[in-house]
Every structure is written in structure tokens, then in C-alpha cells.
């Protein structure tokens, strides 16, 4: 028999027949850990609803992307080894960020390619690492049940998720199952928001010009709520929207999917 192809199943009827609970390690990401723990709890909520047992390994810290993008390959490799050690015993690793998931999936095998011991371990982890929206949609075939949020939302495709991991249809498929939520078309939805990690503080003026255009496009979309899959991009856009005095709120897509969309958005008090 041909191996089961998640995509086909999902496309067929939306729900995968579940045989046993999936054992998942949540890689929280440094930004969610410090700035918005709510995303981590929403991730656990959604994963459990999708039939997963979720563990949060203690030894995780940061995936090392800041070192990688700064050109500090030695430290990037050291952090990659740390993360591999912390996560490799789990059948699935799920990350509420396209760029952190992309670092593990795409860049760990590159960074450690020449290492006879760590190279294969990086490959093995990469294969089992998923961005959360792709995981919920493609692997679990899950859809939110009975989640209602009467709001007009705009979805921004964060670059690493979109171009490194091919995340485009998954969040939209998931959001379509949220009752009363309308997705407003966003002009330039695939255009970078100007965050770029350390880029936004190394070249603040250029970053600002890019982000300003993005914020204007979001405002013009008429959406009340901005959704994306990466907290870095969300903080950048939300911070700009707030500075511009726009009334658009912002949160991570998984918060909405977990039924937490009526809670405090980014920059709002709990």
C-alpha cells in the first residue's frame, strides 16, 4: 500500500481519521516565551484539540536565527546542536513561527552539513519539525470546532513561512472554519513587512519606510484584526499601526484558532 499522504486526505474531506494521539514537542520560540506567552498556550490548546499530547522540553531556548543571520556561524551551530539535543526524542516538533521552524527545517541541515555526527541528527529533526498552522492543517487535518469570532481580518504571509516552508493555503483553510470571521483581501499580502530580525534595528530608517507602507496597506484593507504566523512580524506591524494611531488590532493566527480571539490583542492588557 502506498504511504498515507496527508495532503490528499486533507483535500478530500478536511479531517484525517485519527488512530492514536500524536506526541508533540512544542518549541515555544524565544519571542513568544518573553513577549507573548499567550501564543504558546493557544498552541497547546489547538494541538490538544487536534489530538496531540503536547510536551514543552525544558532545555529549549532560541533556535539561533539571530546568530545565523548575523553571520556568526559558530554560535549558530552551537545553538542548533542545543536545540537538536532538546527536541530530537519527540516524533513531532511544532513551532508557532514560520521563521524559527524554517531555521530548524531548512538551515540546521545546512549549518551542520559537514558534521558527520550532527548532520544526520539535524536532518532527522528537520523532517519532523513543523510550523504550527501547517501541522494542524496538513498533518492533523484539524479544523477549529465551534469557534466563533465576528471580525474582519487581514492575513499577512510572513516571508520565511511563505517562501521557506510553503505556508499559504493552510492558515486560510483553517481560518475559513472560524464562524463569522471574514478575511479581507490585503494588497501586498506577500510583501515583507520590514522586520527582518536584526535588520529592523540595524537599518531602522529603511525598515521604517517599508513598515509604513505595509501599515498603510493594512489600514486600507478595512480589516479590524491583523493575523499572521510570526510574532516578530506581528510586533513590528502592530507597533507601527499603534504609532500611526490606526485602530487595527493584531494577534497570532493560532490564538484565533484556539478560541482565544476575543482576548487581548498585541499591546492590550489581559
Amino acid at each position: 500500500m502506498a504511504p498515507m499522504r496527508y495532503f490528499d486526505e486533507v483535500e478530500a474531506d478536511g479531517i484525517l481519521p485519527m488512530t492514536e494521539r500524536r506526541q508533540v514537542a512544542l518549541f515555544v520560540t524565544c519571542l513568544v516565551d518573553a513577549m507573548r506567552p499567550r501564543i504558546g498556550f493557544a498552541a497547546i490548546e489547538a494541538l490538544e484539540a487536534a489530538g496531540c499530547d503536547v510536551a514543552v522540553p525544558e532545555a529549549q531556548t532560541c533556535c539561533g536565527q539571530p546568530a545565523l543571520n548575523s553571520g556568526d556561524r559558530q554560535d549558530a551551530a552551537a545553538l542548533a546542536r542545543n536545540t537538536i539535543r532538546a527536541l530530537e526524542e519527540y516524533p513531532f516538533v511544532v513551532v508557532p513561527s514560520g521563521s524559527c521552524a524554517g531555521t530548524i527545517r531548512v538551515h540546521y541541515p545546512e549549518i551542520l552539513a559537514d558534521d558527520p555526527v550532527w548532520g544526520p541528527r539535524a536532518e532527522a529533526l528537520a523532517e519532523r519539525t513543523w510550523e504550527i498552522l501547517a501541522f494542524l492543517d496538513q498533518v492533523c487535518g484539524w479544523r477549529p470546532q465551534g469557534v466563533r469570532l465576528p471580525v474582519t481580518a487581514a492575513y499577512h504571509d510572513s516571508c520565511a513561512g511563505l517562501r521557506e516552508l510553503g505556508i499559504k493555503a493552510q492558515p486560510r483553510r483553517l481560518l475559513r472554519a472560524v464562524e463569522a470571521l471574514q478575511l479581507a483581501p490585503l494588497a501586498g499580502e506577500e510583501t515583507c513587512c520590514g522586520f527582518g530580525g536584526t535588520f529592523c534595528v540595524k537599518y531602522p530608517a529603511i525598515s521604517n519606510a517599508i513598515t509604513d507602507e505595509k501599515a498603510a496597506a493594512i489600514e486600507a484593507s478595512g480589516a479590524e484584526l491583523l493575523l499572521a504566523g510570526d510574532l516578530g512580524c506581528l510586533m513590528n506591524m502592530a507597533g507601527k499601526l499603534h504609532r500611526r494611531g490606526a485602530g487595527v488590532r493584531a494577534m497570532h493566527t493560532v490564538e484565533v484558532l484556539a478560541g482565544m480571539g476575543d482576548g487581548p490583542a498585541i499591546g492590550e492588557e489581559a
Partner: protein
Amino acid sequence: MNAGFKLRAAEALADPLLKVAVERTAGTAEAKRATAVAAFDAFEAARTRAAAIKDHVIAHLGHYLEQFEANAIAAGAQVHWAETADDACRIVVDLCRRAGAKSVARSKSMLGEEIGLPHALAEAGIERVETDLAEHIIQLAGERPSHIVWPAMHKTREQVSDLFRARHAEPHAEETITAMAESARRHLRTAMLGADVGISGANFLVADTGAVCTVTNEGNAELSVVPPRVHIVTAGIEKLVPSMDHAIHLLRMLARSATGAPLTQYTTFYTGPKRARDLDGPEEMHIVLVDNGRTKMRDEGLAEMLRCIRCGACMNHCVVFRQIGGHAYGGTYPGPMGAVLTPTLDGLAASRDLPQACTMNGKCQEVCPVRIPLPTLLRGWREKSWREGLEPVSTRSAVRLWAWVARRPWLYRLSARMAVRAMCLFGRRWIAAIPLAGAWTRHRDLPAPQGRTFMDQYRRRQR
């Protein structure tokens, strides 16, 4: 150049006309390319083939160079080899002198810019007439190209109109684009027909025929190089393709990626000088093959960059280029491809900002017709810059300290807890200003952390 980049970028950002000009051209190009690509059958497969053609040539460069040389000579052309930019300029200037040239007509060539040919001709006292409309504008304004396809992209048509009125003998009467083009045509045609030498670049060098291919939309290459007695071609050695079939495939990719058109208005293959039965054409044809760091690039991990066919799609789709335009980059080539090439040409120490001033969003790679992994190559420069100690001490020590902490989970937890507590002192919802984050809060507010870290809250819930 380091302080220079930020300064130039700041000037560019402060110029509202530049933004208008860049947006008009790049925005149009982006939309037209999207339409052309959507109408192209199996564009992704065509990109893969285009990349494979270039990779094959670059891996067998010696073979195809020899084949091209033999066939070009057989067709009656003379072939010259230049290892450096200076060698190339010296060869061209010598050829011009030997031809007794007082004036040369030059058809737009980015390689010419790269090797500093305009400057070399000026030093030799040879009058140079730029015949490409945009290069003509640049020459009148005394500037440098800001884009590899539209050198005068940074100028609005209103600015060009003023320039023509000031510098043309019979400027346009009406304020229309057609009338302005006519004004340039009147001015340039006389100069072109009176030139002693025509200089062009090459979009492709066809190895099995010895032909040189140029593409233009104005026909200025043809009119620049056919009437004069001598035609000189300057071309980078990476322009080689094995055969016409390969050239045609890459032409289809080039035009669509650059302007969204299926083909340029003029696509010409020049095979040798005028032959006995030809009615016109130059008496001599010289082809100067220029290395200028290309074999070094191939051997030092930048082979993929030699696939580049100079379409400009990467810069047209780059969020940074769209904000700052081409001049801010400071090199011959702007945008993502320029950020990869300039450190090779001008040295990394003088251009370390270019690979850094990128959000790594990957759009350039997505639109590249020859699949150059531009973000990966840019990251390669960042790594070299880090290894060679070119990054500021503040950045280096911050990243190293942070990585040292992040390797120790218990210390990392403690630091995250303390950092979050400290940040919470500056605001409960939004932080408008906070020490160490001025670069962020100058332009946007910072959402305050929610309170305790995820790890702390999670552990508490587990108990």
C-alpha cells in the same frame, strides 16, 4: 562607504520624488512580469532549464571560451582577453586610438560601467556619446545609472523634460513622452552617425557561432555599432551560451523577467564584421572578453551568481531597493544582485553594509529567472564579514554574549525572566521609549511583555 551607505540611504528616503520615480518603473515592471509569467507555459521548468544552461557553461567555461574565440575569429572578428577592469579599458582605449577615433557611440552596457569605461575614455580625451535613451539622460545629468535595466529610473519624466529643454538644441515643444523621445532622437541620431567607433556590451556570446547578441528596445545598439568603421564589444566571460537554442531560451526568460514583454523590440546577433557582400557594417569587429573577478567568484563559492542574466527582477521586487533606489548601494550594480557582486568588485570592507541591509525575505530568489539563491549568497558575505572582524564590536559582543547565555537553558530562563520584568517597568501595554531599543521605538511602539515568561507560567500550571 560604510557610513556612506546609511547616509545615502537616508538621503534617498528623504527624497519624495525618488520614491515616485522608483515606484512608477519598478511597480509597472512587477505587474507586467506577473502577467507575463502567468501566461508562460511551465515557467518554473523554464527557470530550472535556464539555471542548468548557465551552470553547465560556468562549469565548462574554458571549453566554451575557446570554442567562442575560434568561431568569432573564423567569422572575421578579433578577440582580446582582459583579466582586470584596467586591462579591459586599456584594450578598448588602444583600439579607439588605433582607429583614430575622436568620438565613440556607446550602447548601454553594465559591464562598461563595471570596468569604468566612461571614465577611461574621458581620460583618453575621446568623446563618448551614450545612445541608450536612459544613458543619454544620465550623461546629460552627469550621473551614474541607478538600475541595470533602466539606468535613469531615479528620474521622473518631469525632471527629464527640464533636462532636455536645457541641453538639447531643438527640444520638445509639447510636454508629451513622444515629443521628448523625438527630441532625444534628433539629438542622438546625428551623434551616432558621426561616430568613428561603436562600443556595445553583450547579452549573450554564442559559442558555436561566435555571435554576439544584444537586446534593446530603442534599436540604439544597432545604430551605434553598424555605421562606424569599428565595432568594439566588451563582455563578461559569463555571458557565454553553448548555442543559439540556449540563447533563445534565455532571451525568453530575460525579457519577461525584466519588463514583462515577450521579447525586446530589437534582438540582434552580430557575427563578425562586414563581409564582402554586405551593404553595410563595420570594417573591424573586436570582442574584449573580461574576467574582472569572475573566475575567482566561480572558485570561491559564488558560481551561482555567474548565472545572472542582468534582468533586474531581483531589485524590482526588493523591498529595500524600492525604498532607497539604486544609487544608495554605491556600486555599479544595485539591489540584491548588486549586494552580492559589489563586495567582489569593490571589496567587502568597503561594502559590508550591502549584504546586511536585507530582510532575508527571499522574494528576489523567488523571481530570479535563473534561480540564484541570493539570500544564501548574501548570508555567505555576512559570514565572511563576521569571520574577518568587519562587523562592529557592539554587534559582535551582543550576539556572542546572547548566544553564550542561550546555550545555557537555566541561565537563559533567568535572563529572560529579568529582561521581561525590566521591560514591564516601562509600560503595561505599549512602550514608546526604552533604553537599548531606540532603533525600534524611534519609528514604532513596542508592545509590553505580557508579564511572566511562557516557561514560568507553564511550569506553574504543571505543578
